[in-house]
C-alpha cells in the first residue's frame, strides 16, 4: 500500500499540513455545495438561482461568506456566554478529525486506523454536544426546543445507523474503512445489502438534520432552531458544519455500500467524488420535495420502523453468512 500518510509522516508538521488541507477542502466544498443546493432548489422550483456573481453565479456564496465575515458578531445580553461562544467550535471541530479518516482512493488516506469506523461513528456523535450547547447557551425557548429535539433525534437515529453498518462489518470482518472499500472491488455491497443501505441513508439524512428530518431547525415552527440567536460568521460555522457533515455521511455511505473508489474507466478518486456528490444531490432532492415530519412521528419512525428492519436485516445477514 502506498501510504498517503507517509507524505506527512506521523509528525506535527504533517498533522498541521493535513489540517490545513482539510480546512481548505471543507471551505471550498461548503461553498460549492451551498451554490449547488441553491441551483438545485432553483431548478426544481423552476427558478434560475444565483446568476449574477461569477459564471453561473458560482462566486455568489463566496460573496455571502465575505458578507458574513464582515458582519458584527452580536452576542445577545441574556445568553450564557461560555456555552454560547464555544458551541460553534464544538459543532465544527469533530468534523476535521472525521475527514482525515476517509479514504479517497486506493491508499489515499491520512490515517488508516484499524478501528476507523468506530472512531468515525463516535466522532460524528460529538457535534450534538455543540448543538446542545448552542441551544442551552442561547437562553431562548426556540433554541432550547431545537436543541432538545436535535439531541433526541440524533440519539435515536444513531441506533439504526449502527445497526445498518454492522452487517457490512460482519461481512468484511474489518473496521477499517480502507479495507471495507477494498473488499468491494468485485461488486458494491448495496447489491447484497440493499436494506441496510437504505436504512443507513435515511438515518444518515436524519443525523445531518436535513429535510425531511430537519426538525431541530424547523424554520416554520422554531424560527431557526438551535442557531436562532447566532449571527454573522458564528452562524456561518453552523452552516459550514452542516454541509461538511453531509459530505461525511455520504462518503461513508459510498465506502460502505457503493464500493468507494471502485469503478470502470475513470480514476478512483473521481469515482469516489462522483458517488459522494451523487448522494448529496439525492439528499438535496429529498429536501426540496418533502414536507417535514413531526417530532413524535420522527421518533416513532426510527424506533418502530427503522430499528426493527435493521435488526431483521442483521439477523438475516448473520444467518446467511453462517450457512
Amino acid at each position, binding site marked *: 500500500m502506498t501510504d498517503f500518510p507517509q507524505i506527512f509522516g506521523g509528525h506535527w508538521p504533517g498533522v498541521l499540513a493535513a489540517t490545513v488541507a482539510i480546512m481548505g477542502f471543507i471551505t471550498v466544498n461548503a461553498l460549492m455545495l451551498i451554490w449547488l443546493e441553491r441551483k438545485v432548489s432553483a431548478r*426544481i422550483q423552476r427558478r434560475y438561482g444565483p446568476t449574477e456573481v461569477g459564471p453561473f453565479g458560482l462566486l455568489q456564496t463566496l460573496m455571502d461568506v465575505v458578507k458574513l465575515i464582515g458582519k458584527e458578531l452580536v452576542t445577545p445580553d441574556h445568553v450564557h456566554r461560555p456555552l454560547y461562544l464555544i458551541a460553534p467550535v464544538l459543532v465544527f471541530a469533530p468534523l476535521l478529525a472525521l475527514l482525515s479518516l476517509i479514504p479517497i482512493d486506493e491508499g489515499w488516506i491520512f490515517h488508516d486506523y484499524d478501528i476507523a469506523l468506530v472512531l468515525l461513528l463516535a466522532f460524528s456523535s460529538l457535534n450534538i454536544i455543540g448543538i446542545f450547547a448552542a441551544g442551552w447557551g442561547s437562553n431562548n425557548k426556540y433554541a432550547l426546543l431545537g436543541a432538545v429535539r436535535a439531541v433526541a433525534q440524533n440519539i435515536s437515529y444513531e441506533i439504526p445507523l449502527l445497526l445498518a453498518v454492522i452487517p457490512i462489518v460482519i461481512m468484511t470482518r474489518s473496521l477499517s474503512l480502507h479495507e471495507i472499500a477494498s473488499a468491494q472491488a468485485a461488486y458494491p455491497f448495496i447489491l447484497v445489502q440493499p436494506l441496510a443501505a437504505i436504512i443507513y441513508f435515511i438515518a444518515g439524512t436524519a443525523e445531518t438534520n436535513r429535510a425531511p428530518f430537519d*426538525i431541530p431547525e424547523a*424554520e*416554520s*415552527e422554531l424560527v431557526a432552531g438551535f442557531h436562532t440567536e447566532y449571527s454573522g460568521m458564528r452562524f456561518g460555522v453552523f452552516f459550514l458544519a452542516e454541509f461538511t457533515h453531509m459530505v461525511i455521511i455520504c462518503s461513508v455511505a459510498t465506502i460502505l455500500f457503493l464500493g468507494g473508489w471502485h469503478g470502470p474507466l475513470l480514476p478512483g478518486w473521481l469515482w469516489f467524488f462522483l458517488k459522494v456528490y451523487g448522494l448529496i444531490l439525492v439528499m438535496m432532492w429529498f429536501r426540496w420535495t*418533502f414536507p417535514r415530519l*413531526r417530532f413524535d*412521528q420522527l421518533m416513532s419512525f426510527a424506533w418502530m420502523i427503522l430499528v426493527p428492519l435493521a435488526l431483521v436485516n442483521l439477523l438475516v445477514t448473520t444467518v446467511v453468512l453462517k450457512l
Partner: protein
Amino acid sequence: MAETMELVPDATDPKTYYLNMGPQHPSTHGVLRIRLHLEGERILGADPIIGYGHRAHEKMAENRDYLQFLPNSSRVDYLSGMIYNLAYCQAIEHAIELDVPERAEVIRIICGELNRISSHLLWLGTFVLDLGGFTPFLYGFDDREKILDILDSITGSRLTYCYGRFGGVTMDVDDEFLRRTSDFCDYFKRRLGEFDELVTDNVIYQQRTKDVGVISSDLIQDYALSGPVLRAAGVAHDVRKTEPYGGYDRFDFDVPVGQRGGDCFDRHTVRMEEMRQSLRIIDQALACLPDGPIMAAKVPKRIRPPAGDHYFAVESARGHFGMFITSDGTDIPVRHKLRTPSFVNVSTMPVVLPGTMLADTVAILGSIDIVVPEIDR
C-alpha cells in the same frame, strides 16, 4: 367555556412554560401572536392576541361616503380582494336595490372564482410551507401568478383590485381575456393532478395532517364556523347555494364536504375540490357570457341607502363574509361592520389547540387559512 390563561405565567410550575409565538414568526401568516402554554412540546393552552394589523376599516367607513370606501374593501382580505371588492359592490346594490346587467354579473363570477382559485393556491403553498415543504409553495405561486396576470389584464392591478363599481364593473372583458381564462382552466385541471401527486398523496403530508386539529361538528354551532372549515367538518353549507347572490344560482356546482370529521386533511381535500368546482363554474360562465352593457343604466350619483340595517353575505375564499351596514339615510354610514371568516376561525384556537404538539399549531393555523389583516380589519 374556553379556558383562558392568566396573564402572568405560573412561575411555580417548573414543568410548563409560556411561548410567545409571534407577532414576528415565520408561520403566523402576518402579525398574529399566540401565547402558548406548553409542557414540553405539548400545548396546554393557547391565547391568540390579535390587533397588530388593525387598520380601522370600520372607522374609516364611518368617515367616508359609500363610494370612497370602495378601495378599502379589497384590502380587508388582500388574498381574495376581488371577492371582497365585488361583495361590497353587491352589498350596496342590494341596499339601494340596483340591478346589475347580466354581462357584468357573469364577469363578476368569472373574476371572483379565478380569485378564489388564486387564494386557495396561496393557501396550499403556505400550508405546505408550514409543514416544511418548500417546493409546492413556489409551484402554487407560479400558477397563482398566471391568474394574477389574467386579472391584471382587465383590472390593471394584481392584488387589491378596485374592479367593481356600484352597478357593474369598470372594464369590459375582451376575447383575449376569455381565451386566456379558458386556456388556464384546461392547464390547471392537469396541474391539480400534479399537486395531488406531490402533496395530497405524500405519506409525510398525510401523517402531518390526518387526525390533526380536528375542528369538529360540536364547535360549528358555538362558533358559527363557515367556509372550508365548516365544510370539512361535514356540513354542506355554502352561501353561494343557500342564498345565491350575483347570479350564482344559474351555475351548476357541488359543495364538497370532508369525510374524516374535520381534520387538517379534510380542509385540504375540501379546498382542492373547491378549486375544481370553481373551474367548473368558470367553464360554464365562459360558455354563457351574454352580450350587453357592463354598467347599469341608472346609477345614482349619491349613494344613500334607506335608513336601517342592511346585511349582505357572500362566500369568500375563507368563508362567510358579511357586511352589516347601518344607514341613517345620508351618504355616510353610521356603522359598517365587517364580519370576517378568519376572525371566527381564529377565535376557536383556544379550544382546538390544547392537547396538540407545537408543530401541529403551525399546521392547524395554516390549515384554517388565516389572513391576519382580515382578522384585525
